[in-house]
């Protein structure tokens, strides 16, 4: 494995983890823009734009883009989150230059009016699809209540109203501001020819102009709150709780992730043995979500509506039992092994590695081999996890529950 990085004159950064032995390579443009970078009235524009990026460029029609992606035999896709938009493809090494040319051209889309109108329908279908699925908007609601006037409160997909009100002109302006070369990172993993990569990207992006696309960061002001939502077709009750946790630049996150695994992993955790293995709940989990300047510790319960109260009480007791039931050495060992083995097994495919390498660099400006990354977990001390555990229930909490009845 060899790591390379280079910044072009226009600010575009290129990084690669090269493994000459790999069968394939993965390429991705990581754009530092997401729902938190939108104005309230343009909520959903990052995600809508992500769809529009596949709709052609001045040099290619929408049909051309789709055909070329398939011609290259690529496995390609894109996603949008609160903080980033990522376009990626996996191809055979012999297709590096063609894949790169296509993906790079896609970063300068045509954004044609007609395509915009058709694609809006697809986005509205996507919103309807998620609205019909558990937990029926509870996650979005919890984000809104937790983050209030903080930009992270906004829905990644936007709402039916904001998506209906978006127009191609304002999307073009958003694209120009947020897709400037200095806000993009090209990430490559696997059997990559790095020099050739740099050379062609430099040529293709020479005319791209940098911009000042800053992101405003501030700590969220949180107030504890409980929200009950009713979704009549639901048959189960879903409860979600958010409380403050470390962000992705905070070293404490290794401690919190181990604690979350011990308390609420989907197998072998304390909540698993208490509620899932016993058949009391379909799911009872603790997990973390990390953002740039802050993070969340999330607790999730899915069960029959009539058992919600009792199960939730059991979860609260378990999460508040730090003093009575301290973390054991055995729990530490199991959680570390599970997390580290999962990371190593997942890293065998260059397509998975793309996201670890890309996120680590764009979030923390750090490259780590998979071995180095697992060491952070191995180094976590039981005292630190115990301390985090004891403080867990003192935090402010936003709880949203949704089910068939109020």
């Amino acid at each position, binding site marked *: 494995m060899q790591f390379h990085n280079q910044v072009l004159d226009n600010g575009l950064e290129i990084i690669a983890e090269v493994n000459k*032995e790999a*069968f*394939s390579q993965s390429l991705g443009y990581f754009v530092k823009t997401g729902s938190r970078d939108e104005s309230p009235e343009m909520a959903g524009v990052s995600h809508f734009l992500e769809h529009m990026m*596949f709709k052609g460029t001045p040099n290619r029609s*929408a*049909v051309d*883009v*789709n*055909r070329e*992606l*398939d*011609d*290259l*035999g690529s*496995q*390609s896709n894109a996603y949008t989150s609160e903080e980033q938009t990522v376009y990626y493809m*996996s*191809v*055979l090494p012999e297709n590096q230059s063609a894949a790169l040319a296509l993906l790079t051209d896609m970063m300068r889309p045509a954004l044609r009016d007609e395509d915009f*109108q*058709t694609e809006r*329908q*697809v986005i509205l*279908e*996507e919103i*309807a*699809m998620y*609205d*019909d*699925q*558990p937990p029926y908007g509870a996650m979005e609601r919890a984000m809104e209540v937790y983050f209030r006037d903080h930009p992270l409160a906004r829905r990644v997909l936007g709402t039916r109203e904001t998506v209906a009100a978006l127009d191609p002109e304002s999307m073009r302006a958003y694209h120009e501001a947020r897709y400037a070369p200095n806000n993009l990172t090209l990430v490559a993993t696997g059997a990559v020819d790095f020099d050739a990569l740099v050379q062609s990207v430099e040529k293709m992006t020479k005319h791209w102009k940098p911009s000042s696309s800053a992101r405003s960061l501030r700590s969220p002001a949180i107030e504890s709150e409980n929200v009950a939502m009713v979704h*009549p*077709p639901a*048959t*189960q009750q879903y409860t979600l709780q958010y409380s403050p946790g470390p962000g992705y630049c905070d070293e404490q996150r290794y401690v919190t992730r181990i604690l979350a695994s011990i308390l609420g992993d989907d*197998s*072998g955790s304390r909540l698993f*043995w208490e509620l*899932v*293995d*016993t*058949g009391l*709940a*379909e799911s009872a989990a603790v997990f973390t979500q990390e953002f740039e300047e802050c993070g969340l510790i999330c607790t999730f319960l*899915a*069960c*029959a509506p009539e058992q919600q109260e009792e199960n939730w009480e059991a979860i609260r007791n378990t999460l508040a039992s730090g003093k009575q039931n301290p973390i054991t050495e*055995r729990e530490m060992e*199991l*959680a570390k*092994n*599970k997390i580290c*083995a*999962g990371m*190593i*097994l997942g890293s*065998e*495919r*260059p*397509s998975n590695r793309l996201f670890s390498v890309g996120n680590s660099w764009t979030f923390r400006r750090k490259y780590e081999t998979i071995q180095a990354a697992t060491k952070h977990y191995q180094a976590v001390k039981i005292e630190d996890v115990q301390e985090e555990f004891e403080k867990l229930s003192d935090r402010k909490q936003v709880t949203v529950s949704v089910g068939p009845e109020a």
Partner: protein
Amino acid sequence: MQQKVFEHRLPNGMVVLGEPMPWLESVAFSILLPAGTHHEPSNRLGLAGMTLEMCQRGSGPWSSRDVVEQLDFLGVERSSSVTTFHTSLSMAAMASVLEPTLEIAATIIREPHFPEDELEEARQSALLELASIEDDPAQKCFKELKRLRFGEVYGRSSLGSQEGLEETTLDDCKKFHASHYHPDGAIISLAGNFQWDSFLKLVERLFGDWTGKPKQAHAKVVSIPGSSHLKHDSQQTHIAIAYDAVSYNHPEYYQSRGLVGILSDGMSSRLFSEVREKRGLVYSVSASSHSLDDCGSVLCYAGTTAPRAQETLDVTVQTILELEKGIEPDELKRLKSRVRTSLVMEQESSSSRSSQMAYDWAYLGRVPTRKELLSTIDALTCESLIEHYSKFRPKSWSLVTIGPEPLEFANAVS
């Protein structure tokens, strides 16, 4: 594409398959047992799943908790499932822990404790899982499609029925285990970083003295055309369609798979272009090949908001029927390119390779190599696909919709 697939049959009938992938650090195995939902008594639907669950609640020297802890300690990723014909157990781990991992898997299969005090917990979990599908209309749609199309025995869901799960006793689980967890008809396939000789010795040690009844034959699976609508108070209508096609073990399977590829593989495929890209009718639309023994089907799915559901169904069916008009050479070229790439990338994952080998053996009684597959795909022509289409026209249609309103379906009787 250097590839070596080892095959061996133990005297008790168990088939052992192995494909070394020395460039990986991992190993992954799949174990298929000849114990499926079609073996369940009709008043014990869900028994195969309950038995599998109970097998994982303590076995050999380990208690229920030990099994989970031991696998977590070894860093093993695992999954288990039940299908119409098989129960499967899959695990992936670092190559260095293959032996202790397989030892645990062997006890789960051969020496379960069936602890009496855990039956209720297993039952409650199974009932919850069955209930949760009510909140997942897309999955429910396919469950109903399977029931409608393949009938009472072969159309069963692994989730079972409420009555079946409620009636199941510990004795039922023990009997099901004794009657169907057998070496004859069982397959173990391993892929990743390992030595075949020592793996075979390990399998012989763990499974060599396993005995049981010979594999039983079962009645032919046939598709039953028809349609049904389930009313659901949702924004979207979920549409599941099926029609006859040749099965995985048919000599012309890859012609049929090629046609499904033209419909659904990639962003330039016909369903994606016609239903989503041109008309914006859906977020998701797809088709896939499905086989139950000798009975092959193409399954399609589309989800769309209710007022546009009829148009979505009509365009989807029309797109399928228009295959008859011909295949463009470029379409076929793209398809071949995608297949070639995915065959190369299969070498990056021990898990996907091990499950593919087990599936191949279960259906074909052999494991085709990548080279063979590639030459079969390379031999496809636009003409051969169309010829296949004319020989095996879509027929015996099934349609299931879930949503506010039923839809009109002209093909329902053909």
